[in-house]
């Protein structure tokens, strides 16, 4: 059971990273990225392919973060002319196309066969049998770092600018700041985090193929952000935890409800995900967390 707990916590860490990335892009930045899973997939593939080529896993991870950040930045260039719903469909289309390319360009990606034998970073460090625990620690460390960085960003002048752009890009333009610049940076940072999440996914499963990546990853990330409260990083981490435990926990339902087959159960699980998302939007519009403000502003005004 402990082993299973460790596995589930690792999934929580990866989901939390994806949620944090979306929280930056959508929660703070107002950019609806339905194609999140595409960037995540790209991260997994860059890290996976480079690792099996013999690059040290941590270096591959770094390249994956940079690569996804660069591509995200590029795709944000389109965003400046698009309203939110259009950006959503464009990113979704981009991700689906990316998946197609990965499926068919086998010379590069090994196509549907997938990439197997991906080595985890720092596996030699841990005593035998502690590999999973070690990897979990690594993933948790990644969450901690990303959380700290995002929290600092959110409270910085940069975070303020990002939120300002979300509220009214026209005003930000009129103040002499480049909206496109802000969006590109937001997408790039979010992309780097997604690249990190994707890499961890590849390391964790040690095998990746195109069928592992689909819009449901995007849906989970949106749920994490909506539940956690748009803009609240702490809320997102907490809700990723709850979400994954609910989803994983439901695997045990099959032992408790004998009348139901696994396929019915899977359907019920995902049905509840959908209904839960809508219900949360309706009944808990602000989620459970609160958006951080720029730190100094808080500090100064509390002097009164």
């Amino acid at each position, binding site marked *: 059971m402990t082993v299973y707990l460790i596995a589930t916590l690792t999934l929580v860490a990866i989901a939390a990273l994806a949620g944090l990335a979306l929280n930056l892009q959508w929660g703070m930045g107002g950019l609806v990225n339905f194609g999140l899973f595409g960037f995540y997939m790209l991260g997994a593939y860059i890290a996976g392919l480079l690792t099996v080529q013999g690059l040290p896993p941590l270096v591959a991870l770094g390249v994956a973060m940079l690569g996804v950040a660069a591509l995200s930045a590029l795709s944000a260039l389109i965003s400046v002319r698009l309203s939110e719903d259009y950006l959503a469909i464009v990113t979704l289309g981009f991700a689906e196309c990316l998946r197609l390319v990965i499926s068919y360009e086998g010379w590069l990606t090994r196509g549907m066969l997938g990439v197997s034998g991906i080595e985890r970073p720092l596996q030699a460090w841990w005593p035998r049998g502690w590999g999973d625990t070690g990897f979990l620690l690594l993933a948790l460390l990644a969450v901690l770092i990303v959380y700290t960085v995002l929290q*600092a*960003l959110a409270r*910085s*002048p*940069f975070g*303020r*600018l990002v*939120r*300002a752009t*979300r*509220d*009214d890009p*026209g*005003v*930000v*333009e*009129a*103040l*002499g*700041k*480049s*909206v496109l610049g802000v969006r590109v*940076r937001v997408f790039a*940072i979010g992309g780097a985090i997604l690249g990190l999440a994707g890499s961890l996914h590849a390391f964790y499963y040690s095998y990746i193929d195109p069928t592992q990546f689909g819009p449901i990853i995007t849906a989970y990330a949106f749920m994490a952000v909506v539940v956690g409260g748009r803009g609240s990083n702490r809320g997102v981490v907490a809700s990723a935890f709850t979400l994954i435990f609910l989803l994983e926990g439901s695997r045990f339902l099959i032992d408790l409800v004998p009348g139901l087959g696994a396929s019915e159960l899977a359907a019920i699980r995902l049905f509840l995900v959908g209904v839960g998302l809508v219900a949360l939007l309706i009944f808990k519009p602000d989620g459970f967390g609160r*958006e951080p*403000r*720029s730190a*100094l*502003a*808080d500090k*100064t*005004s*509390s002097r009164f």
Partner: protein
Amino acid sequence: MLEAVNVSVIYEGGFKALNGASVQLAAGTVTGLIGPNGAGKSTLFGVLAGAVRPVAGEVRLGGEIVTQHGPAWRARRGLARTFQLSRELASLTVLENVLVAQPHMRGENVLSLLWSRRAVRDEEDAAIDKARALLQRVDLWKLADAPAGTLSGGQKKLLEICRALMLDPRIVLMDEPSAGVNPTRIGEIVEFVQALRAEGTTFGLVEHNMGMVRLLCDHVYVLAEGQVLTEGRFDDVIANTEVASAYLGAQS
């Protein structure tokens, strides 16, 4: 300083919002734009600020042709504006609304956040001091921590003015700054503008409060149907019967 020459704006669907209008904002003066609703005043402001691109004509800023440059570019060259309908950043606090306008913040550069944290903090402290001075002047400092979306209409107008001034602009375009503002506060706006003009700031003003226009404006343009009807000193313009009939409705 800032001028629009023969600009025309046609909105999709054929509506001619501006039809060859020319205005000139001389350095260090306050220029008023008056005229009935829908005359094209706000559109002309949009053109001057770069938010609306004209189909014909050009815009010059300090002698340079800037027609092709967007609002951000012009803002970086010292052109600030407020909007007719307040556009506060609703989820940001009042203080943040003003701080966000501070130009050249290194803290907005992600890498500087990492490398020069000290400089970022000093910069932020300086910006807060500057914002406090502005907000205190319009009596909004007490609300510094409130989300801007919760302000009243008049307070939002004042907040917009503070935000524009935070840019240390050379030119300020103010679109109906007095609309919805408590009459006692209007006096403060007037003082504000006069003080800054004395320091050399140029102002453009769209305003329906004629008292304010008379007090502030060195030069007045009257717009109607997208064209400049007449221009001149306020009292001269007011004396013009055509203007009176177009706008003031006062039978002289």
